[in-house]
């Protein structure tokens, strides 16, 4: 019978905290860039100008279909040579997950925009609004509200996907855990504790999100103008 002993974990908890912070940092960065980029991609894809719509469509499909780890390796190993720049794990991770998440967010935006009934477009047109005005004032506010569950789901998914950065030595939680496991020769306790930490954070976030969604639903059409 294996004797479980979590002392190692408790003694080195500060390392794991740093790792968790690293995870949050890269997730936050990817969200900060990914959301606006996703909106840009979605609007481009919906545009009537083919020269905008087609490349946007390609970027979205390419980054949704190829595995994130392949993208990460490409940006970490290939890009610095191609563009003759200094590459750090954080930079590669930030670029990869900003673009990767933007592709998924673009689809969420697009679905939301398209789901708004035609009558709203017509009413906006009829009072003399131009297309960009109508998008900004009438369509997007309604679309975003509708798509909040999908956005939060995608964001939580993003947090899980960022564990890949451990493979390029970015100091996220998994990386720290791996280092600790190697040093301490107690991989069972370390990885079990790490899994539990991830579980608590991610499950906790989903519960929060569900609670917020329920609250939004109850208060009805309470969007701020």
């Amino acid at each position, binding site marked *: 019978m294996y004797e479980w002993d979590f002392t190692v974990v408790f003694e080195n908890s500060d390392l794991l905290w740093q790792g968790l912070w690293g995870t949050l940092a890269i997730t936050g960065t990817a969200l900060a860039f990914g959301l606006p980029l996703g909106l840009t991609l979605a609007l481009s894809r919906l545009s009537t100008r083919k020269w905008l719509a087609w490349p946007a469509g390609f970027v979205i499909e390419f980054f949704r279909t190829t595995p994130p780890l392949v993208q990460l390796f490409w940006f970490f190993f290939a890009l610095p040579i191609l563009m003759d720049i200094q590459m750090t794990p954080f930079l590669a991770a930030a670029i990869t997950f900003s673009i990767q998440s933007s592709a998924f967010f673009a689809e969420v935006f697009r679905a939301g925009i398209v789901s708004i009934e035609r009558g709203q477009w017509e009413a906006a047109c009829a009072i003399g609004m131009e297309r960009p005005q109508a998008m900004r004032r009438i369509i997007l506010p309604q679309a975003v509200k509708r798509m909040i569950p999908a956005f939060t789901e995608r964001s939580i998914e993003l947090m899980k996907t960022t564990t890949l950065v451990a493979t390029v030595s970015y100091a996220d939680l998994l990386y720290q855990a791996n280092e600790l496991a190697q040093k301490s020769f107690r991989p069972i306790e370390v990885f079990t504790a*790490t899994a539990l930490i991830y579980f608590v954070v991610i499950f906790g976030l989903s519960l929060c999100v569900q609670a917020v969604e329920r609250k939004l639903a109850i208060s009805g059409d309470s969007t701020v103008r």
Partner: protein
Amino acid sequence: MEYVWDFGSVWEYRAALWVGLINTLRIFAICLVAGLSLGLAIGLARYSVRRWLRWPAACFIELFRNTPVLVQIFWFYFAFPILAPFEISALMAAALGITLNSAAFSAEIFRGGIQTIDPGQWEAGRAIGMRHREIMARIILPQAVRRMLPALTNRGIEIFKMTTLASAIAYADVLHQARLIASVNFNPIEAYTVVAIAFFVILYPIVRATYVLERRLAKGD
């Protein structure tokens, strides 16, 4: 300074890439079959009337959906071998992680599909004297599967992409081979571009097919 692309250096090592592709397909097949089957079983358990089935199923689903799959793979590769009485290869560890993860997601797809079937179908089955198990197998599941097809296909695509994570524990999948080639030839650009394009070429037709499938199902309903 213009970079000079040289795909020849990758072409030279195509045998290694081919091995990688075979390995990718191997782990994909294992995880797809095992993941979906296990997912079905757990999905049914989640929906069961018996509490002793429902609760463990729910816990399993929440645990494996709310932890990252790479963490699961690392756990099975580094932690599990000490607890287990047998050798765990990279293939086994990665397959375990991906399979259990996919089972948890598939279980939710199955549960969703089954729950959206009109309760009237259950009543009709009971009215002619069928047992729960028979109703599920002969009436409910055949209808539910049709509805779940897009979500299941998406899950399959996700599984295929997840196989690249096995390279992190040195399983010789196509990404691992590409990394090897890149380190030997100093041509990461060509090596990884080839792998990215390969995945795109393989997966995109299937992605498009699911769009068509979804549209057709939406019309049918």
